[in-house]
């Protein structure tokens, strides 16, 4: 499967009468955006704002971050199962708008969402402070259930990203990157001397609005399966969760998964990048056992030599992580696990809830309990009403000078367990 990923860099976003992309500037009409958002019947009102890198702006409560992408050639559409039909994606041509994102905000469950600071020390902890963010602020209709609000805001974000990307459909990309995965047999013949490596991605699927979707299917209902690695670049996997925002994968990270991209860079040189295996993190023990059994089975079937396993979240998913690691290693396949740590504010507590001797190669994305003081910023997009309730904050967070003292757990993407951000340790 081959995907040509075209990139068009957006240099500024401006509100305007007419929606268009011209000379690298994205002009959007609030009326157009509102029309798109209000197609979600559980949304009462929608407003929009723009946050630029370096501005004294805090966005909170952040639900999702989405990179606008559109298919320009080939089967299917971006976000299959939600925006497009359920054709298999990941081939043909896709255009991505780089340098920008659509950020959805709203107090859905209020302690479950995150924070993005565009300047100051908080900005260093989130990858999304470097983007031009088109913020979508949606109020739900009266008596809207939380899960309906979550679904409506998720859909509004995807629809607006698709609308914006559509404005660039006929513009030639500035650069194009090609990603290609041969079928199993061809790959085996082409690279007989290279180690066969796959990526095992664990998807957050604990329920209670901690969900991830694959081709429209709630990931808690899937059995582990195999994707071509380009499928996620076309939005086959998308986020429905953000609690403890530091280590959840917003849709943007699924579209731009650095483990997938880095494995592609080594493909045909030092490794044969065989496949992208996805599995879930459910709350019943039998589900954890079944999914890790099936994951190990798939790795064995694919004739792998090694895998990289990434976790999403922490706590009981640490057990899924260790089960995957142990069972895949038991098949004679080497593993490296990627996770983050909840080692207490002093860093002295046990980092993961579970452990095993098989997990002897680990990359950490930092300690989510680390405290940070974030100064008061001039402008808030969204609301500060819930800042002391967000997971990783506390009722002592708000200081007399208007700054907040919180764990980096509150910051969207701070300890990304696919290595999307910069924190790590030696």
């Amino acid at each position: 499967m081959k995907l040509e990923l075209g990139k068009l860099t957006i240099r500024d976003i401006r509100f305007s009468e007419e929606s268009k992309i011209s000379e690298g500037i994205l002009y959007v009409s609030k009326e157009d955006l509102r029309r798109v958002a209000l197609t979600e019947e559980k949304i009462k009102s929608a407003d929009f704002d723009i946050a630029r890198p370096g501005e004294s702006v805090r966005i909170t409560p952040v639900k999702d971050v989405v990179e606008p992408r559109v298919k320009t050639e080939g089967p299917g559409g971006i976000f299959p199962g939600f925006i497009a039909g359920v054709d298999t994606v990941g081939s043909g041509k896709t255009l991505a708008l780089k340098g920008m994102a659509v950020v959805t905000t709203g107090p859905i469950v209020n302690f479950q969402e995150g924070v993005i600071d565009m300047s100051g020390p908080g900005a260093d902890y989130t990858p999304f402070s470097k983007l031009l963010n088109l913020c979508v602020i949606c109020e739900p209709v009266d008596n809207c259930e939380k899960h309906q609000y979550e679904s409506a805001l998720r859909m509004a974000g995807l629809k607006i990203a698709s609308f914006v990307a559509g404005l660039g459909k006929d513009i030639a990309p500035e650069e194009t990157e090609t990603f290609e995965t041969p079928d199993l047999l061809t790959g085996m013949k082409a690279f007989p001397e290279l180690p066969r490596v796959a990526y095992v991605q664990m998807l957050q699927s604990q329920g209670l609005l901690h969900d991830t979707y694959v081709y429209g299917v709630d990931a808690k209902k899937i059995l582990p399966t195999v994707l071509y690695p380009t499928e996620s670049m076309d939005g086959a996997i998308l986020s429905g969760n953000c609690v403890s925002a530091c280590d959840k994968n917003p849709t943007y990270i699924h579209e731009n998964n650095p483990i997938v991209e880095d494995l592609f860079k080594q493909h045909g040189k030092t490794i044969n990048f065989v496949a992208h295996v996805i599995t879930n993190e459910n709350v019943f023990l039998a589900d954890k056992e079944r999914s890790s059994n099936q994951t190990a089975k798939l790795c064995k079937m694919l004739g792998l030599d090694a895998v990289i396993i990434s976790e999403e979240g922490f706590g009981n998913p640490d057990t899924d992580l260790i089960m995957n690691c142990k069972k895949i290693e038991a098949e004679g396949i080497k593993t490296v696990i990627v996770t983050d740590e909840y080692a207490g504010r002093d860093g002295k507590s046990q980092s993961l809830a579970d452990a095993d001797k098989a997990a002897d190669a680990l990359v950490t994305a930092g300690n989510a309990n680390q405290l940070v003081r974030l100064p008061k910023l001039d402008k808030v997009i969204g609301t500060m009403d819930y800042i002391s309730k967000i997971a990783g904050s506390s009722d002592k967070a708000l200081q007399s000078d208007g700054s907040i003292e919180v764990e980096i757990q509150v910051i969207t993407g701070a300890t990304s367990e696919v290595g999307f951000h910069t924190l790590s340790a030696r």
Partner: protein
Amino acid sequence: MVKEIERSGLPVVHVCTVTPISMTVGANRIVPAIAIPHPLGNPSLPKEEEKALRRKIVEKALKALTTEVTGQTVFKD
């Protein structure tokens, strides 16, 4: 907590969903629970059935408490 109470001489049954973590931390009598968001019940069941389920877990835990063990044991049935 399981280990500290046991250290003072009282037997403990750990009722928990993720029994592998219980094994890792060193509990001796482990009774599997239902699910992480609702360890001791199942809100999707009708009331009567749920009551029976809850009673079964408690009875299993009491039985485990009075059973001699020689090592870490998960009481599956």
